[in-house]
């Protein structure tokens, strides 16, 4: 039964080993589920959030996974709309990673809200002026797009594909994938941007507040941009990790190179824009509210200028330089270091825009608010990681995620025999 489901021409580990790993990761997943149920049944008092930290680790996790899931929309845009054909060899995996990221984001949101059963009010009683409304709408719609993009992949399972209807459906969906991808890109642009707008419209929070154009603060564009830059980096990183674990080459290096190069240029331009934004904010926007630049980076046990250096120089400038140079991309070590840094950069950026925003005192007679998540928060944040690993394991085992896997395998075998 198991072997009948595995795609033709590829090798997978034994079913027993597979199940063993599923159980191990499943245990972590279960831990997360317990924490999730505690939050749902006992309420958010299970967390270490408080009235100063209404937004905390979960919102950071949300923003981070959505940024990293941005690889799906951007790769899709490049592949289907712009026509970078080589990327068809990685698009499936990008879609899968995106699907995991977005479903995780939705799940975390469902835990994070105080009244999960009323969550749908965000749609029904929508306030169109709220960035969060836009996020919710675009996020769910884009999740629908990802599902639509993921379905054909499921339908390509050896057994399902045998059903003519499913075969046809998959074929037809591939046929008009460009429309879905374009819609997805449109939606992503807005929700990534809206997530950027989420902190930046808070004009009562000078650390987060940014000026902008029309209704969109500058971070609206910066977030979209950084998602487009760091999302593909995450795809590359996960692909690399998968290759290491499976001890196989799954995607040809030229495909990775192309994606890395594009991501590199995105990251480079993003970093420049981010530097300009930071400079303007530090010298014009924040002082207008009476804040010195160092007010945001002193008198507290954690946040210092180092975090800015980490985000912009270490995780922005350095990976950009590596990725836009051919030598940098060619070195496997540098490439992986660069994508890792870029991913870290996106995470740090989202952290700063959520948690540091909450930490900075605005009233002169308050001091910094410090917070450490409870185990329930940590467990529910790790839950999606476990879920993602399991979904990847299953998808990799039973679905033809990597179109080049078979030929790469054959080549490898051939080379051994030469």
């Amino acid at each position: 039964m198991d072997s009948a489901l595995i795609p033709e021409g590829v090798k997978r580990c034994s079913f027993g080993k597979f199940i063993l790993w599923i159980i191990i990761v499943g245990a972590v997943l279960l831990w997360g589920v317990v924490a999730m149920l505690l939050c749902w049944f006992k309420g958010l008092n299970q967390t270490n959030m408080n009235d100063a930290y209404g937004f905390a680790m979960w919102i950071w996790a949300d923003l981070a996974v959505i940024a990293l899931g941005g690889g799906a929309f951007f790769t899709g845009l490049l592949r289907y709309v712009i026509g970078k054909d080589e990327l068809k060899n990685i698009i499936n995996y990008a879609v899968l990673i995106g699907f995991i990221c977005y479903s995780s984001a939705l799940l975390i949101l469902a835990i994070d809200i105080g009244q999960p059963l009323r969550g749908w009010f965000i749609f029904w009683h929508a306030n169109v002026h709220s960035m969060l409304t836009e996020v919710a709408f675009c996020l769910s719609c884009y999740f629908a797009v990802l599902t639509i993009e993921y379905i054909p992949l499921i339908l390509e399972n050896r057994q399902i594909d045998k059903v003519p209807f499913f075969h046809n459906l998959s074929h037809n969906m591939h046929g008009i994938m460009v429309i879905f991808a374009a819609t997805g890109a449109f939606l992503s642009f807005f929700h990534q941007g809206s997530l950027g707008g989420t902190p930046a419209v808070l004009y009562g929070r000078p650390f987060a507040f940014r000026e902008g154009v029309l209704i969109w603060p500058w971070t609206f564009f910066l977030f979209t941009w950084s998602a487009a830059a760091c999302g593909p980096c995450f795809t590359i990183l996960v692909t690399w990790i998968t290759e290491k674990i499976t001890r196989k080459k799954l995607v040809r290096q030229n495909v990775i190179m192309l994606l890395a190069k594009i991501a590199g240029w995105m990251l480079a331009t993003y970093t420049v824009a981010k530097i300009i934004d930071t400079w303007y904010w530090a010298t014009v926007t924040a002082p207008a509210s009476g804040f010195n630049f160092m007010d945001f980076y002193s008198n507290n046990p954690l946040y210092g200028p180092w975090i800015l250096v980490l985000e912009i120089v270490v995780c922005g400038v350095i990976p950009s330089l590596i990725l836009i140079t051919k030598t940098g991309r060619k070195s496997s070590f540098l490439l992986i270091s660069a994508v890792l840094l870029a991913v870290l950069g996106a995470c740090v950026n989202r952290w700063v825009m959520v948690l540091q925003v909450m930490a900075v005192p605005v009233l002169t007679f308050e001091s910094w608010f410090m917070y450490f998540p409870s185990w329930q928060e940590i467990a529910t944040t790790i839950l999606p990681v476990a879920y993602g690993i399991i979904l990847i394991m299953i998808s990799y085992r039973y679905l033809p995620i990597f179109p080049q896997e078979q030929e790469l395998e054959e080549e490898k075998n051939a080379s051994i025999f030469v």
Partner: protein
Amino acid sequence: MKEEHKHGKASKFGMVIDLDKCTGCGSCMVACMSENNVPFKKDETNKLDSITWLRIYKLTNGKKFPETDICYIPRPCMQCEGDHGHSPCVSVCPATATDYNHETGIVSQIYTRCFGCRYCMAACPYHARYFNWWDPVWPDGMEKYLSPNVSPRMRGVVEKCSFCFHRYQLAKNKAYAQGRRELKEDEYQTACTQACPAGAITFGDLNNSHHAVYKLVKPDNKHGGRPRNPNAFRLLERLGTNPKVYYLSSREWVRRAGDNYIKDEVKKEHH
């Protein structure tokens, strides 16, 4: 200005708190809690999960003994007007659970609509919004004192000071029943104003030049209600939130503590 409100123009209810008179006694806090069915729990010493619609902050001037000075600042919801009702919290609420009432200038909160995303709390620089981390529990028998005018909130929603909006509604109903459209100044007063033993709180319509609040601060309603009384100030004036809660203090350090200033900046007193 004067003519406008005479013809039934919208009100803009606001509060003036005289910090020279405020003794930090806490009556306003308790008046608010008992008026608005605010719950309590065993340990309320973590002020970051303790629901106090009106919280009194204790400020010090930071000087050494015996130059030290302290001042209390009661902080209800500021009912920010922002820019034409674009208060920091209202525009961010995704479910329209909080709203700026243009008739009164009061920021409302609909508990049954709120689904607890807490975006409004992140938006509020005054920490005036509180989340119900727990189900409210009253010891057996104590639910007898709960007022039917304000519904007790359930776990998982945000709540905040409403300037005792139910009192406005009750006063309005009474006035309508008597065939009046306008409320007299003393007909609508918040619970904290009423209880303050020092008489430090004044409440009324900032659009009405006959009201005490207007006379006390002389708001420049063309510029977001900036106070023209040199002893009056608002918290975080520079953010443009345009609060409707004003403070009076004769002490410079207290007025300066109301806002942030960049290094070496001299406070520009409003003329």
